[in-house]
C-alpha cells in the first residue's frame, strides 16, 4: 500500500473509533437528510399550492360575466411564480420575495406574501436546507475532525517517527487530506441523493444538478485542504482549532451579513412609495389624460383623426375611448419598464458588490453559485417580474383593443346615463376565455450556468489558493521534519 493510502486508512480508522467523530458525522448526515426531506416536501407542497391558486385565478378570470372591457382591466389577473425543481435543494431567495403578483391596468403592484414577512424572526437564523447544511455546517465538521490530523501527531512525536520511516511530508498532508475528503463525501452524500431525486423524479436539469454537485464538492474540498494545511502549519492543535473556527466564523457567519450592509450602504435604493410618485410625475410630464388641453393627447387625437381621415372622434370607425386607453397604457408601461430596469440594475450592482466579498469568503462564492444553478437567485425573481409585466401589458392592451373595436364611441360615452347603452357596452364573456393564460418561462440551463459562473470562478480561485496552502504546508513540514 502506498504511504498516502496507508496514512489515509489509518486516519479513517482512528476517526471511526473516536466517539466525537462518530457523533459529529452522524449528526451532520442526519441533519442533511432531514433538511433534504423537508426541503423537497416543502418545495413540492408550495409548488402545488401555487399551481392550485394559479388555476383558481385563471378559472375566475375566464368565468367573469359580460362586462365593459375596462372593468376587466381593473379586475386584473393574479399570477404566481412557480418554484423551480431545484428549489428543493436550495430555495434561495424564494422566501424573501413575494410569490404572487396582482396585475391590473396602469398600476404596477408588488409581489406579495413572501414567507419572510409571514414568519417570526426565526427566519433570520437561516433555513435548514441541504444547501445551508453544507454551506454552514459542513466546514465545521471537517474542522472538528481535521484540526488535529497533523498537529496532534506532531504534539505527540508521531510525525517525526513517520519521517524517520521515510515518509515524505507531502505524503502525510495528502493522506490526511484524503481521509478528510472521505468525511466530506459522507457530508455531501444526502445532498447528492436529494439532487439525484430532484433530477430523476422532479425533472430538474441534469447539468444544473451536476454544477451544484461539483460546486459543493469543490467548496468542501477547499475546507479539507485548508483544515489539513492549518493543522500542519499551526504551532499546536489548540491554535489550529482556534484559527480554523475563526476562519469559519468569518466566512460563514460574519461575511454574508457584512456584505449585505456594505452593499446597501454603497448603493441604497429608493422606497416603493418614492418610485410610485416619481413615475406619476414623469407620466404627467409626458401627457395628462385628465387635462382636456393636454398637448400630448391633443396631438394624439389629431394624428388618429388624420389616419382615419375624419374630422371628429365621433366619426371614427373605432371607439376613441379605447384608443385613449391604449395610448395611456403604452405611456405608463414604458415608464414602469424604465424604472424597473433601473431598479434591477441597482440590485445587480448591490449583489455584485456583495459577491465581491466572496474574495474573503468561499461561503459567499458557493452561495451565489448554488442559488444561480438552482434558479432561485434574485435574477429568477426578476425574470418572473419581467415576464409578468409583459403579460400584464399584453392582456390590458388586448382588453383596451376590445373596448376600441367592439364598443361604439356613442355607447361608451353614455353608458352611465342610458341603460340600453350601458347594456351594450358589456361584451360577451367569451373574450375573457380567449385571453391567454400566463406561462412562466424559467431560466434556460445555459442562462442558469451563466449566472453561476462568477461563483464558480471564485470557488476555482479558492480551490487553487487552498491547494497552494497545502503545498506550502508540506514544504514547511518537510523542512521542520528534516
Amino acid at each position, binding site marked *: 500500500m502506498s504511504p498516502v493510502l496507508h496514512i489515509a486508512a489509518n486516519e479513517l480508522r482512528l476517526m471511526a473509533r473516536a466517539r466525537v467523530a462518530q457523533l459529529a458525522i452522524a449528526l451532520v448526515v442526519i441533519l442533511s437528510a432531514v433538511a433534504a426531506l423537508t426541503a423537497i416536501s*416543502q418545495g413540492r407542497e408550495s409548488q402545488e*399550492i401555487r399551481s392550485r*391558486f394559479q388555476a383558481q385565478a385563471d378559472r*375566475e378570470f375566464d368565468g*367573469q*360575466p359580460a*362586462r365593459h372591457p375596462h*372593468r376587466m382591466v381593473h*379586475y386584473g389577473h*393574479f399570477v404566481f411564480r412557480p418554484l423551480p425543481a431545484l428549489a428543493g435543494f436550495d430555495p*434561495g*431567495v424564494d422566501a*424573501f420575495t*413575494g410569490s404572487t403578483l396582482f396585475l391590473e391596468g396602469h398600476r404596477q*403592484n*408588488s*409581489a*406579495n*406574501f*413572501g414567507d*419572510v*414577512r409571514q*414568519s*417570526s*424572526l*426565526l427566519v*433570520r*437564523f*437561516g*433555513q*435548514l436546507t441541504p444547501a*445551508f447544511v453544507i454551506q454552514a455546517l459542513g466546514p465545521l465538521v471537517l474542522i*472538528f475532525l481535521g484540526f488535529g490530523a497533523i498537529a496532534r501527531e506532531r504534539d505527540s512525536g508521531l510525525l517525526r517517527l513517520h519521517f524517520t520511516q521515510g515518509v515524505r511530508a507531502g505524503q502525510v498532508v495528502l493522506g490526511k487530506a484524503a481521509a478528510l475528503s472521505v468525511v466530506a463525501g459522507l457530508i455531501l452524500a444526502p445532498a447528492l441523493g436529494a439532487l439525484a431525486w430532484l433530477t430523476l423524479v422532479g425533472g430538474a436539469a441534469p447539468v444544473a444538478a451536476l454544477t451544484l454537485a461539483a460546486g459543493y464538492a469543490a467548496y468542501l474540498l477547499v475546507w479539507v485542504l485548508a483544515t489539513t494545511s492549518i493543522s500542519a502549519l499551526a504551532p499546536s492543535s*489548540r491554535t489550529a*482549532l482556534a484559527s480554523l*473556527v475563526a476562519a469559519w466564523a468569518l466566512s460563514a457567519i460574519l461575511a454574508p*451579513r457584512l*456584505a*449585505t*450592509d456594505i452593499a*446597501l450602504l454603497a448603493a441604497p*435604493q429608493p*422606497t*416603493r*412609495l*418614492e418610485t*410610485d410618485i416619481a413615475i406619476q410625475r414623469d407620466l404627467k410630464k409626458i401627457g395628462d389624460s*385628465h387635462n382636456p388641453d393636454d398637448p400630448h393627447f391633443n396631438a394624439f387625437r389629431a394624428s388618429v383623426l388624420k389616419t382615419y381621415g375624419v374630422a371628429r372622434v365621433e366619426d371614427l370607425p373605432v371607439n376613441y375611448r379605447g384608443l385613449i386607453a391604449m395610448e395611456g397604457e403604452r405611456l405608463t408601461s414604458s415608464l414602469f419598464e424604465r424604472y424597473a430596469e433601473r431598479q434591477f440594475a441597482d*440590485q445587480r450592482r*448591490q*449583489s455584485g458588490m*456583495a459577491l465581491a466579498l466572496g474574495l474573503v469568503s468561499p461561503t459567499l462564492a458557493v452561495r451565489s453559485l448554488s*442559488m444561480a444553478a438552482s434558479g432561485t*437567485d*434574485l435574477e429568477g425573481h426578476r425574470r418572473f417580474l419581467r415576464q409578468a409585466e409583459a403579460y400584464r401589458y399584453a392582456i390590458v392592451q388586448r382588453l383596451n383593443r376590445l373596448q376600441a373595436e367592439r364598443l361604439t364611441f356613442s355607447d361608451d360615452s353614455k*353608458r*352611465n*346615463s*342610458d*341603460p340600453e347603452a350601458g347594456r351594450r357596452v358589456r361584451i360577451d364573456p367569451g373574450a375573457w376565455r380567449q385571453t391567454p393564460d400566463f406561462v412562466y418561462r424559467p431560466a434556460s440551463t445555459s442562462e442558469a450556468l451563466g449566472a453561476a459562473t462568477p461563483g464558480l470562478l471564485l470557488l476555482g480561485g479558492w480551490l487553487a489558493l487552498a491547494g497552494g496552502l497545502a503545498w506550502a504546508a508540506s514544504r514547511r513540514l518537510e523542512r521542520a521534519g528534516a
Partner: protein
Amino acid sequence: MSHLGQELQLFLRQRLAVPTLALLALLSVVSVVAGMTEIRRQVETIARIQPLQAAEEAVVAAWVSRDGDAGNAAYYTFHATWDRPSALAFAALGQRDVAPYVLRVRALALESQIHEGETYNAELALPGRFDWAFVLTFLAPLILIVLLHDLISGEREAGRLQALQAAGGRTGLWTHRAGLRAGLVFVAVAAPFIAGAAMSGASAVEVLGVLAVAGLYLAFWTLVCLGVGALGRSSVANGAVLAATWVVLTLVLPALAHIAINSANPVRQGVELTLAQREAVHAGWDKPKDATLAAFFRVHTEWRDTPPVTSGFHWKWYYAFQHLGDLSVADPVRAYRRGLESRDAWTARVGLVLPAAGVQTALHRMAGTDLAAQLAYQDRIRAFHERLRRFYYPYIFNETPFREGDFAKAPRWAEGD
C-alpha cells in the same frame, strides 16, 4: 479589589486576551454604526416623502376641484402613512428591511392595499443585517468560548493547577476569573450599544432592559463554558465541545424550530383573502345597486336616508361595494392574523428554551421591529383608513362639492395613530 486588579493584569497579559476583546468591541461598534446609519436613512426617507406627498396632492387638487367631484378626490388622493423607528431600532433592525415602513393608502378597499410590499434586494435580505443583536447573539458567545474554554484546563496543562488550588484554598478563584472575563466581554459588547442608545435618545429604562437581557444571555454562556470546563477534559476538547454546543444552540435548533413552527401554523389565508376580496369587490359592479347599498346601509346607517341612486354610475354605490368587499373577507383576515400571531407566540415559547431565540425575541420586541410591530403598524393603517373613509363619505353621500380647500381637511397620519 486589589486582588481583582492583579487578576486583570494577569489576564490581559495573555496572548489572546486583548486582541479578542478588541475584535469584539470593534464588531460591536461597527454593528451599532451600521444600525444607526440604516435607521437614519429610514428617518430621512420618512421626512423626504412629506413634501413629495404634498406636491402630489396639490396636483390632484388642481384638477379635481375644477368640477368638485368628491368621488374623484377620494379615488385619486393617496394618503401617506409611516412607521417611525423606535429609539432602540438601530440595535435590532428585525423586519424593517423587508416590510414597508412607508405606505400610501386610498379610501378604496383596503385589503388590496395593506399587504403591499417594499422593494428590496432579496439576495441581501437573505443573510440578515449586521446589527447589534446579531453581534450579541452570535458572536459574543464565540468570544466567550475563546476566553473561557481553557480557564481551568489551561492552568492544568501549564502545570499550575495544583499550586493554584493549594495556595490559600480560595474557592472563589475560578468564579473571580470567569466573572472578570465575562465582565470584560459584556463591557466590550455593551459599551458601543450604550453610546448608540444615548445618541438615539433611548430611555434609561429601555437601555437597562436591553443590558439585562444581554447580561443574562452572556451569563448563560459563561455557565456553559464553566460547566464544560469542569468536566476536566483538555483545552482542545473543551473548545471543540463548546463550539459544537454553540452551533447546535444558535444555528441548528432555531432552524429546526422555524421549520416546525411554520409547518404547524400555515398562513395560506393571505393569498386566499386577496383572491376572495377581489371577487367580492368586482362582483359589486354586476349586482343590483339597491341590494349593494342596502347591505352597506346596514353597516353605515347614517347614510340610509340620502337620495337613492338612479343613474348608471354613482360614487356612493362604488364606495359602498369597495367597503363591502373588505367586510366580506373579515373572517379570513382574522384567521390570517391569528396564524401570524400564533407563529410569533410559538417563537416566544421556543425562546424560553433556546437562549439565542429568546434573546432575539426580547431584543426585537423591545426595539419594536418584530412581526408584532409590523402587525401593529397595519392596525394603525386600518384605523387611519377608517378615518379616511368617514372623511370622504359626507361629501360623497350628501353630494357635497369637494373644493380645493377641502383637501387640507383630510385626516393626516399622526405619530400617535
